[in-house]
């Protein structure tokens, strides 16, 4: 116990089960007599349903039932949307389509059978009679709206909203330069490697329903499912087993989750549905999906005066849980890492005949960062100055924090220039630029991209969140001395079983292996919010810390009572409470503490106290459970629960510098360097932080160069499998050179800022900036993502 765990590269405690193939994801859970569900989904983007004929499907041996929209319309409540924006239009989103389908993949009927094979066979035999309608695919046409998707609304505009501070008109009119650019943020598919899946089991006698779901939010899901299905919330248990990635796509409440629960209640048997990858691309939320126009106003010396962003957001056909909120997050982060006195965002959010957009890693903030960083690059190009220098010029200084932005936020802490300096030093920026000049003269297309981002994390104060922004933890020391942590966060790859155990082991002075972190089971864990928005460690980890502090307050009282002293005279170190020296000699005791291991675990002996000068936390736990020597008015047991409500968001930041070379004949892009200096506040486990950054940057590479959900003009999703939707592979990513600065957040006692989304937020503008820089000899100022080789080839060949 000499070394603290926090701050070290501690190997993950969750790994052994995962690397041995012994972990359980939803589809790995086998219950006897389980029925299997397969969905009939719309093959049209927009159509009227005249009839759904299930008779042939019911004849397939093994098929137990087929449910259509008509069957469930008044049985299962609508899919919820948690965003309460003023004047938001909310379509009635039923779990199965009844009269109309609104997007390709829209569920129409659920086939239930004794095995997956029969269910799948029967899907082909459900005859849906459609009259197809014109599809609204292009979001700008949706805004203009000749075809109205939800007829009762009269148009396709879900809401309009403007926000921002400062006089944007004055800024634009008084500026030396106003630069305009249209920017597209194309739709992306989150593609967690484990598709979604649900297993539901209803016990008719006990009237209890258990739903296993691959979700990021077990408790929020429980509440919503209870409302949808009409089962008392305390009769519903949601279990989140191992979850194979989420990236926001499982921060939601989906029709299938409610429907499976309801079907299990109808049939009295377990039912299971495992999403196929095609269903995943069609009917799990998409990310991004904005068309925006920026105007940035600056002085000739590069000082920024104002930024306006007019954006049309493509919401898809329905709201999912947070759909309408995502563009508003874009608005919040439009100040980036800069002092911009006037900012305005004008959002027009529209329905289209596509799957809903919602939170995908970064959720609205990558769009903002991308917009601001592209704008800074455009300013630099216009003024003929180095992009790093334009950024430096507009940073708030380290002593200006908390820094108030014109978007209404107060950035907690930061030293943006320090991160920029460090990154520049690592790449040897000056030499790099000289080298670029030299190689350019030889005809080689080298580009350097710089992004100095700031993001908003640790979501968040409840005032700013649709369903609570706090997080909960219970810490319990069992009679045998083992430490149990119940967290309301729901990690699915981030490694909080380890990082929370690190926090607890240090605070309690116990061995890491004596700590078990339990999550994702509403039957076991107190209500929690979940894992998203880079919040689990900053908010949930703080809850763990404070719960431990609460627990220790009680433990010290018990210790003082047993040691017949006053709690203020005890010190806690190395896992034990000891009388301070003076007090100890006064008590005349000199016996060393009995090591914990020597106490026979099975016998639960009474603690020896006579003449003792110290007690381990485990001995106190035992005493607390035996309850024979407790101070007056003390509850037995040793556990504490804390719900941590943060006062503010946190604002991690950093600098990414990317060097690429472009092949002028083919447009191929080769990474030469990838350097990232990120500041996520205090670091619990550097290895996990690096992993989060690598993954985020990799997804950014996907967004910048490969990924796009493509609907054709009729609303068919034509990038419908991983044959066409390209995820980065090992050979597509460079060697990442990571470093850090560490500016603690004042928002939580651990000083943590969060890092889950940083890579996805900081990287895209740097990559695009590098590519555009490489093409600057051809007069290229901006390219929209994904920048495929052909995009580059065309850019080179149209500029001549």
């Amino acid at each position, binding site marked *: 116990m000499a070394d603290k765990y926090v701050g070290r590269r501690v190997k993950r405690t969750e790994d052994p089960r995962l690397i041995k193939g012994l972990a359980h994801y939803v589809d790995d859970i086998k219950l006897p007599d389980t029925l299997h569900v397969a969905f009939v989904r719309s*093959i049209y983007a927009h159509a009227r349903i005249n009839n759904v004929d299930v008779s042939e499907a019911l004849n397939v041996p093994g098929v137990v039932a087929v449910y259509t929209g008509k069957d469930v319309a008044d049985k299962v409540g609508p899919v919820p949307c948690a965003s309460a924006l003023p004047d938001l239009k909310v379509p009635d989103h039923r779990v199965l389509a009844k009269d109309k389908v609104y997007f390709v993949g829209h569920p129409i009927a659920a086939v239930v059978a004794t095995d997956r094979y029969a269910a799948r066979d029967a899907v082909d035999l459900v005859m849906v009679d459609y009259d197809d309608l014109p599809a609204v695919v292009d979001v700008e046409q949706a805004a203009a709206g000749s075809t109205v998707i939800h007829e009762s609304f009269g148009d396709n505009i879900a809401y309009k909203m403007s926000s921002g501070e400062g006089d944007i008109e004055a800024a634009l009119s008084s500026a030396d330069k106003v630069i305009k650019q249209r920017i597209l943020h194309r739709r992306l598919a989150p593609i967690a490697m484990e598709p979604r899946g649900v297993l539901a089991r209803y016990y008719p006698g006990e009237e209890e329903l258990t739903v296993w779901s691959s979700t990021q939010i077990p408790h929020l899901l429980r509440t919503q499912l209870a409302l949808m299905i009409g089962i008392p919330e305390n009769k519903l248990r949601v279990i989140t087993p191992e979850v194979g990635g989420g990236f926001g796509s499982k921060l939601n409440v989906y029709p299938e989750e409610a429907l499976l629960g309801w079907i299990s209640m109808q049939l009295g048997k377990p039912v299971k549905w495992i999403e196929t990858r095609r269903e995943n691309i*069609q009917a799990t939320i998409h990310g991004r999906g904005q068309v925006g126009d920026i105007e940035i106003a600056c002085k000739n010396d590069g000082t920024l005066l104002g930024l306006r962003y007019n954006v049309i957001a493509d919401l898809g056909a329905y709201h999912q849980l947070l759909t309408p909120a995502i563009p508003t997050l874009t608005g919040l982060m439009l100040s980036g890492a800069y002092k911009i006195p006037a900012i305005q965002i004008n959002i027009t959010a529209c329905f289209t005949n596509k799957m809903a957009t919602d939170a995908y890693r970064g959720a609205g903030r990558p769009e903002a960062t991308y917009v601001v960083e592209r704008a800074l690059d455009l300013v630099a190009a216009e003024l003929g100055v180095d992009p790093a220098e334009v950024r430096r010029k507009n940073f708030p200084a380290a002593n200006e924090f908390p820094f108030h932005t014109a978007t209404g936020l107060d950035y907690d802490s930061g030293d943006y220039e320090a991160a920029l300096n460090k990154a520049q030093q690592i790449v040897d920026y000056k030499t790099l630029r000289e080298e670029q000049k030299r190689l350019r003269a030889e005809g080689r297309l080298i580009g350097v991209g710089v992004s100095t981002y700031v993001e908003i994390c640790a979501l968040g104060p409840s005032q700013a969140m649709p369903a609570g922004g706090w997080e909960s933890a219970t810490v319990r020391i069992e009679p045998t001395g083992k430490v149990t942590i119940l967290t309301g966060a729901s990690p699915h790859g981030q490694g909080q079983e380890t990082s929370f155990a690190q926090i607890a082991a240090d605070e309690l002075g116990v061995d890491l292996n004596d700590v078990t972190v339990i999550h994702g089971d509403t039957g076991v864990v107190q209500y929690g919010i979940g894992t998203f928005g880079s919040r689990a460690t900053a908010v949930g980890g703080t809850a763990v810390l404070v719960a431990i502090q609460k627990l220790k307050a009680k433990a010290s009282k018990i210790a003082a009572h047993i040691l017949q002293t006053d709690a203020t005279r005890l010190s806690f170190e190395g896992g034990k409470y000891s009388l301070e020296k003076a007090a100890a000699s006064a008590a005349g005791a000199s016996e060393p503490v009995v090591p914990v291991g020597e106490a026979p675990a099975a016998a639960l002996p009474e603690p020896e106290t006579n003449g003792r000068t110290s007690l381990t936390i485990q001995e106190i736990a035992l005493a607390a459970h035996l309850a024979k020597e407790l101070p007056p008015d003390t509850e037995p047991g040793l556990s504490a629960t804390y719900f941590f409500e943060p006062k503010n968001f946190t604002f991690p930041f950093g600098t990414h510098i990317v060097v690429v070379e472009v092949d002028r004949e083919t447009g191929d892009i080769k990474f030469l360097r990838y350097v990232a200096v990120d500041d996520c506040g205090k670091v619990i486990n550097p290895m996990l932080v690096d992993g989060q950054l690598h993954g985020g940057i990799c997804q950014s590479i996907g967004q910048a160069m490969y990924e796009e959900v493509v609907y*054709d003009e009729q609303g*068919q999703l*034509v990038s*419908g*499998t991983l*044959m*066409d939707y390209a995820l980065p592979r090992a050979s597509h990513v460079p060697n990442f050179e990571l470093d850090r600065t560490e500016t603690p957040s004042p928002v939580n006692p651990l000083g943590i800022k969060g890092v889950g989304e940083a890579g996805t937020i900081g990287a895209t503008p740097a990559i695009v900036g590098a590519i555009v820089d490489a093409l600057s000899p051809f007069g290229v100022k901006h390219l929209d993502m994904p920048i495929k080789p052909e995009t580059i080839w065309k850019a080179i060949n149209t500029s001549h």
Partner: protein
Amino acid sequence: MKVEGVQHIDAPRAKVYQLLVDPVGLSRFIPGCEQLERTGDNTFAATLKAGVGSIKGTFKSTVKLEDLRPNEHFRMVVDGKGAPGFVKGSGDLDLSDEDVGTSVKYSGDIQVGGTIASVGQRMIQATAKMMAVQFFTSLERDAKPSGDTSSAPPPNFFRRALSWISGWLREFFRKR
């Protein structure tokens, strides 16, 4: 998807037109057409076994001929549905005389939905092109004045080759 082109047919215009609007002719030209029945004035029900290589699907289709101007123009509207998805299309075919034979100008729109749209995009355009070639090869074979069939591909080649996306392909050809 837009499909357009001009095809030269080595036969007189009247004959080409007659073949194109005749159900017997159509059923021979449309790749994979197994059955074509008249259901009304210029309206037909067809079963198309469409596919390429091992990739096959059966489409129940309706075919409508509209805007008929003998020997000059007609429009074909096709709507086919099957397990792999649907194919819809409409196209205009304009015939004009050439020094020798007839020029058929076609221009239409094809819409594909369902599995073939979500997984087949890599080959959809190529399949469309292939189907077009097959359609006109068959038309030319039938339209040629002589009975020279030596250059015609064997029938099972067509069966095999024309299938999958032929649904929509056919449709747009018909449209023209």
